[in-house]
């Protein structure tokens, strides 16, 4: 496999990751969101393995494997269990106007391309062109956290942001040192557990997972 061919495959994967980010943004059903999130993790892990192959860095294989286990299997499973336990009957979430959200998303992608173009000029790596996609994934995850109302979907947005950061690390510097990656993976895993506990707490206090209810906590002026 030549370097240019690997770079081509990597850009196709980057494009697919961007597509899954938009998929997360517009998907209404919670189980659909979980599926898309798992797909994004899978694409991310394949992309990491390919970068590891072309750069000859073997620790990237380990992080690809780590991504595969945690983001494709464990996290979606934990979230699935949570949704199941919390008995979220109403799967469909009303959102503010999907076309508007999509347009904002497109603007964010253009913005991140613009922000990343100076860095791209300086970089010499084969993966330099995917940096903008990575930043866009982070921003789209953030947008998802802002526009969604339910706690579970916001967490998925947060995890998608983390996917984007991981992708940025791989494409900007061929990945972080393994120690840091292990630490981040463990953090995410623990965060998922803590989120789970929070969900139950939120629901017992407010009897809903809609975070709008939290506005009741504001002090009366």
């Amino acid at each position: 496999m030549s370097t240019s061919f690997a770079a081509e495959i990597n850009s196709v994967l980057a494009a697919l990751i961007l597509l899954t980010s938009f998929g997360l943004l517009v998907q209404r059903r919670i189980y659909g969101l979980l599926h898309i999130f798992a797909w994004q993790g899978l694409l991310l892990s394949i992309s990491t393995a390919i970068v590891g192959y072309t750069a000859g860095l073997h620790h990237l294989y380990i992080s690809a494997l780590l991504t595969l286990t945690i983001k494709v299997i464990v996290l979606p499973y934990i979230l699935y269990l949570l949704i199941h336990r919390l008995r979220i009957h109403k799967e469909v979430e009303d959102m503010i106007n999907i076309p508007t959200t999509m347009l904002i998303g497109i603007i964010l992608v253009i913005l991140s391309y613009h922000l990343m173009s100076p860095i791209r000029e300086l970089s010499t790596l084969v993966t330099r062109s995917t940096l903008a996609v990575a930043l866009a994934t982070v921003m789209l995850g953030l947008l998802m956290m802002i526009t969604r109302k339910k706690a579970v979907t916001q967490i998925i947005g947060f995890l998608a942001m983390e996917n984007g950061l991981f992708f940025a690390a791989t494409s900007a510097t061929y990945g972080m040192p393994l120690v840091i990656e292990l630490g981040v993976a463990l953090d995410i895993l623990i965060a998922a557990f803590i989120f789970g506990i929070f969900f139950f707490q939120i629901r017992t206090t407010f009897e809903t997972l809609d975070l709008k209810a939290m506005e009741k906590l504001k002090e009366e002026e």
Partner: protein
Amino acid sequence: MREGLYPVLIECLQVMTVLIGAPLFAGWIKALKCWSQGRSSAGLLQPFRDLSRLFIKETVLAENASWIFTATPYIVFGSAVVAGAIIPVLSVDLPLSAMADIIALVAIFAIARFFLALAGMDTGTAFGGMGSSREMMIGSLTEPAVLMSVFTVSLVSSSTSLSHMAHVLTSHTIELRPSLAFALMSFVMIALAETGRIPVDNPSTHLELTMIHEAMVLEYSGRHLALIEWANMMKLFLFAALGIACFFPWGIAGANEIWMLPAAVLLLVLKLALIGVFIVFIETMFAKMRIFRVPEFLGMSFLLATLGMISFFILES
């Protein structure tokens, strides 16, 4: 040979192909649909029989119909023929295609739609107005998306002339291009909406509340209806040909390659047959969506087209 009669002959041949091929293609889709549902089909030639029957029948005009109503079938048919002369179906060697690029092509389709919508409202029936307003809503959403998706191909080939685009794509080596993949997905969604197929419109229904295209042409009869139906089949054929020219141009004869023409015809038939299978597959798998979902569907295709354009700049330049 380049300067002589050859390009004119090619042009005539191509227009004939579009005129005759369109009903055949429509017949193929109908036959496939019949087979997939376990019915026996009426054969590939049935659209021709329908058309000739309509041409023989008497034309009934509403009393208050204005000149727009009588002129529209000819305008719609004429614009479809002109579009057929621009899109490289068999060969890129088209004298007329130098005159009009992809933007002009979209404008030609827009003229046909504009007059069809006017004619729908002309007789003053309730269904006509309803169909016109729906058609214009869909049109206003598809036109930017179709331009965006074809512009992505223009970016790759750095030209807006269809013949040149097809030529550049065939002469390059095959690369993995995410931008073209996005543009293709978006184009398929738009083409389904533009040609009035499921999941946006159902071409074979006269169920009053769901029809879009049929509602506009409800008042037509006789040869007017025949022209409109024929133009509609040509539109389907042309969108298929446009997709082929933009995304799978391999096999379209290049400039001065007269020996390629038989192969081009054969490949065209093969590609169209496959597209027919694809359309029938979609129409079997999906139900027609609610009209209020259509903007979301078309917004999605606009998003895909824009992503294609962006990913050309991000990932391929």
